[in-house]
């Protein structure tokens, strides 16, 4: 019965859009003009955000000593990055301690998927062509979006550069070359071409090579006396990477609308440097990745009251993992994933201040592998979202409901004939979110806001079907979020401080049915997945930004973020001893306190940038005992940038010094991070 209801909603969503499309066309209104591309994606950043958002864009982003998207996201509040070290090391983002699988990562408006393990390695996304990185808690504050945009606990939006031309400009060429520590060689080129006012194109290519070699040090002192017990320095091995990326896009405008189409190709080979443990200081595992996707967006105002947005994507990913070490289990497995995605969103304005939207998405995922016992899972996902937003003077509200239907299929494939393999049962989930903001004073940019969101993440193909480890009985992992906060913004014309912004949010989250790996039987060679955990998170996110003109032409830009989080494991244990050791404990790798500071000083064509990241003490697990304790770490990074203009050519040179104070630290236990390192870059723009 429920299934039928769901299908009806879904069909209704698809057909209503088609029907409306026809009706609206006959209405044939053409008076409304659309905003520029970037505004659509960016939203109204300094205006009234109903939903907490943080973003870094343009020059701000370029000035950071950030190589990948992960490096930039570290500056946001409420965020933890798991970083295994080096340019090739895995980097994942965890927002408000709900787990990295709960973060939706969107590239130019469409989610990047990984049905295999749900893990999006943000280290693979270069900042070279990224114009803006934004982070939303809950969901993007725009009801006119695909259903998938409503479907994660929090979201990171990456917006690549779209071509922009001055009057009479036809082409743009930008060439960047970066080099520095870890034998880094990183050239890239961007070409943008304007065919006419309605059509432009861009093409971007990047190459990265690095040996990934860096010195690290392990030192232990005797408690109290601080007498050195051991002090060993070694060089990180097998952290090399070589990658290429090609990206191309076409950007078009049509009356009352626009469209975009792009293709993305990434290929890399890297070493997996592994954990540094006693008597083993080097590993030999390798990984190859090849990702391709093509995606398109079409958006049109059919009438002043009715808009449509269509998104489509096809992605094809290949991954090969090799363990050539004959002392361990020999592994040489390849995994191929495909994803097809189509979405249609409709917005209808009921009144001037009252919008509604209906979106329907379908997605199909497959995973194949030459691994023994593999079951070749396929997943069909359908999502339908209905949302509405209304503004009544001081109050702005948004509400959305999302229906998700998931059906998995497998085939026995590489399994033995008598294996009783089966697919996970169908999932049908109904979830919702509600956002409200209130602006009490007409003259002040002061907004109060609150939200509630209930959403889940599906168990991944690995969670469910990985040979001998997967557990088809897994339930989805649910999160419930409550948030209340404010945003304040003030501008001055004649003062030293030109603008100041402050936002603070207090939140409470619950994670239910947390999916956890536990060993099977004895020994540590076989693990399985279980829904075991329950976590409560109480936190405060604070971020502030200020711009000041200190003296003629001397501008100072300050950005500060701070996060306090009490993320406690309330999973019940069976005995008093175990209960005492983990119940109520701060969960693994989540610091109580962390924060960042970015200070940028600009004088004419010179820029000086300083950034600081602080991650407070943490524990390796929810047993908050000294054996699991990890000290705080913090890095200080600096950069000097000089811009030069020769006629129509812009030159930009920069020197970066990262981890200036040469701190030895680990983000993840036994994965040492680089000490002081350097980067030089030169950009030529024509």
């Amino acid at each position, binding site marked *: 019965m429920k299934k039928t209801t769901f299908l009806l909603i879904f069909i209704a969503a698809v057909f209503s859009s088609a029907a409306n499309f026809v009706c609206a066309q006959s209405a044939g209104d053409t008076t409304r003009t659309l905003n520029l591309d970037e505004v659509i994606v960016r939203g109204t950043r300094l205006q009234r955000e109903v939903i907490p958002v943080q973003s870094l864009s343009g020059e701000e982003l370029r000035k950071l000593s950030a190589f990948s998207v992960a490096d930039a996201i570290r500056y946001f509040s409420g965020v933890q990055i798991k970083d295994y070290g080096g340019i090739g090391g895995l980097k994942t983002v965890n927002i408000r301690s709900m787990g990295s699988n709960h973060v939706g990562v969107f590239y130019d408006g469409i989610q990047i998927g990984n049905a295999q393990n749900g893990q999006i390695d943000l280290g693979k996304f270069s900042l070279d062509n990224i114009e803006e990185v934004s982070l939303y808690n809950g969901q993007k504050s725009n009801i006119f979006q695909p259903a998938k945009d409503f479907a994660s606990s929090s979201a990171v939006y990456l917006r690549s550069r779209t071509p922009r031309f001055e009057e009479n400009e036809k082409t743009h060429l930008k060439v960047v070359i970066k080099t520095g520590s870890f034998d880094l060689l990183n050239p890239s080129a961007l070409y943008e071409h304007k065919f006419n006012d309605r059509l432009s194109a861009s093409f971007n290519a990047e190459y990265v090579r690095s040996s990934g070699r860096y010195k690290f040090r392990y030192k232990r002192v005797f408690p109290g006396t601080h007498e050195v017990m051991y002090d060993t320095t070694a060089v990180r091995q097998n952290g090399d990477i070589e990658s290429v990326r090609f990206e191309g896009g076409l950007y078009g405008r049509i009356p009352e609308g626009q469209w975009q189409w792009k293709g993305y190709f990434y290929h890399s080979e890297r070493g997996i440097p592994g954990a540094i443990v006693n008597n083993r200081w080097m590993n030999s595992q390798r990984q190859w990745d090849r990702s391709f996707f093509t995606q398109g967006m079409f958006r049109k105002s059919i009438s002043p009251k009715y808009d449509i947005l269509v998104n489509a994507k096809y992605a094809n990913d290949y991954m090969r993992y090799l363990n050539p070490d004959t002392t361990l289990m020999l592994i040489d497995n390849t995994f191929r994933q495909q994803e097809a995605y189509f979405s249609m969103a409709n917005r209808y304005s009921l009144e001037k201040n009252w919008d509604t939207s209906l979106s329907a998405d379908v997605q199909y995922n497959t995973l194949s592998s030459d691994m023994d016992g593999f079951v070749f899972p396929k997943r069909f996902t359908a999502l339908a979202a209905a949302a509405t937003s209304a503004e009544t003077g001081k109050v702005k509200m948004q509400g959305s409901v999302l229906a998700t239907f998931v059906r998995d299929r497998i085939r026995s494939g590489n399994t033995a004939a008598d294996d009783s393999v089966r697919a996970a049962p169908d999932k049908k989930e109904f979830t919702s979110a509600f956002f409200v903001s209130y602006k009490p004073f007409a003259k002040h940019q002061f907004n109060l806001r609150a939200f509630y969101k209930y959403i889940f993440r599906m168990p991944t193909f690995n969670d469910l079907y990985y040979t001998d480890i997967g557990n088809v009985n897994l339930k989805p992992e649910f999160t419930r979020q409550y948030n209340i906060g404010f945003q304040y913004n003030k501008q001055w014309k004649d003062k030293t401080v030109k603008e100041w912004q402050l936002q603070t949010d207090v939140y409470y989250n619950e994670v239910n049915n947390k999916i956890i790996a536990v060993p099977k039987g004895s020994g540590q060679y076989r693990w399985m997945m279980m829904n075991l955990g329950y976590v409560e998170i109480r936190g405060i996110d604070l971020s502030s930004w200020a711009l000041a003109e200190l003296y003629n032409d001397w501008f100072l830009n300050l950005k500060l973020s701070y996060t306090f989080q009490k993320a406690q494991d309330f999973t019940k244990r069976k005995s008093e001893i175990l209960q005492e050791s983990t119940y109520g404990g701060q969960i693994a790798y989540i610091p109580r306190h962390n924060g960042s500071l970015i200070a940028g000083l600009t004088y004419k064509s010179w820029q000086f940038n300083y950034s600081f990241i602080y991650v407070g003490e943490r524990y390796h697990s929810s047993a908050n005992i000294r054996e699991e304790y990890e000290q705080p770490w913090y890095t200080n990074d600096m950069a000097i940038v000089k811009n030069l203009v020769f006629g129509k050519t812009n030159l930009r040179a920069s020197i970066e010094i990262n981890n200036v104070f040469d701190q030895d630290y680990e983000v993840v*236990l036994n994965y040492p991070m680089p000490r002081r390192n350097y980067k030089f870059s030169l950009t030529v723009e024509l």
Partner: protein
Amino acid sequence: MIYTISSCRDDVEMILSDDIAVNNPEAVKGYKGFYLLNEGNMGSNKASLDYYNFSTGVYTRNIYAEINPTVPKEMGDVGNDIGIYGGKLYAVINASNKIEVMDAETAKRIGQIDIPNCRFIKFHKGYAYVTSYAGPVIIDPDYRQIGFVAKINTATLKEIGRCYVGFQPDELEIIGEKIFVANSGGYMGAGDTEGYERCVSVIDIGRFTEEKRIDVAYNLERIRADSRGDLWVSSRGDYKGLSASLFFIDRKKEAVTDTIPIAATNYWIDDDLLYAYGTEWNNVANDWQIAYRIVDTRTHAIVKREMITDGTDKEIEKPYGIMVHPETKDVYITDAGNSVTPGALYCFDKDGKKKWSVRTGIIPGHFALLPNDEP
């Protein structure tokens, strides 16, 4: 301001041991105490050693780093087995590819023997024998990772020979002049149960060659001799349709002559009793099914007596290590819990009542009793 924040991170201090009084002092019967090796989660480098002293009733947690503070990165990654022989304590540290050799009385490091992917250890007439999953280094397109037993001179701590056996050999047992090795094939059976090994290798110690294979069942793990020298072998099953079982090998016939249909995930043989527990995943209940059983090694019957009688078995999340004190008959059972946080050790008296319990390191698993008469 930067300076004050920068001073927050200090030199990392090594972690000293903890003394916990868990029991009243007891009269020492045959053994001074025992070591408990905690495996530590793979990749965490958290193998650790605990010691319990019978005469004081004090449990000392995490003694290795304090006694051997200058060893870089401490004890290592994944402690898999432990044994005492000739006044030396041997800890097999699987993912650190070594056997850590310490003084049995003080746990002071003597040296290490490098054996890649080492698993279990046994001793015989001045030599230690260690099983290993590590395959030989040869160039072969159809490369197969056959495991071996390494022979180590316990006086020089040098490896002096290897005897190749089956795939992924686990426990071994030495009876007379023969080594019996339980081959698992654990790397190979994931997709197809037939990929698992199903044999016990019999090695002639004098020639140090495999002379025979005894067919038992898929995916063997443990092999222990009873007082008559007959062998009790366990199979893990295939984690699918085939459940775990316990098999009896008659020493003289060198063949399986009986099957005890219980899951024996781990067991300890004392006198004529085999103390076993079994953990099996139940897809219907969506939980582990745990059973504790005692088998009479003479009659092969399951003894009616319960190992735990006071309900404490309900508190044990994941039984892992098991030991019986040969004199007092106290039963020691460890709980690995969730495997990423510290576990627990329980001591039960011979009537199955809890005497004491204590928090251990992560994945407490392997015991070594320290005899009174050790030099």
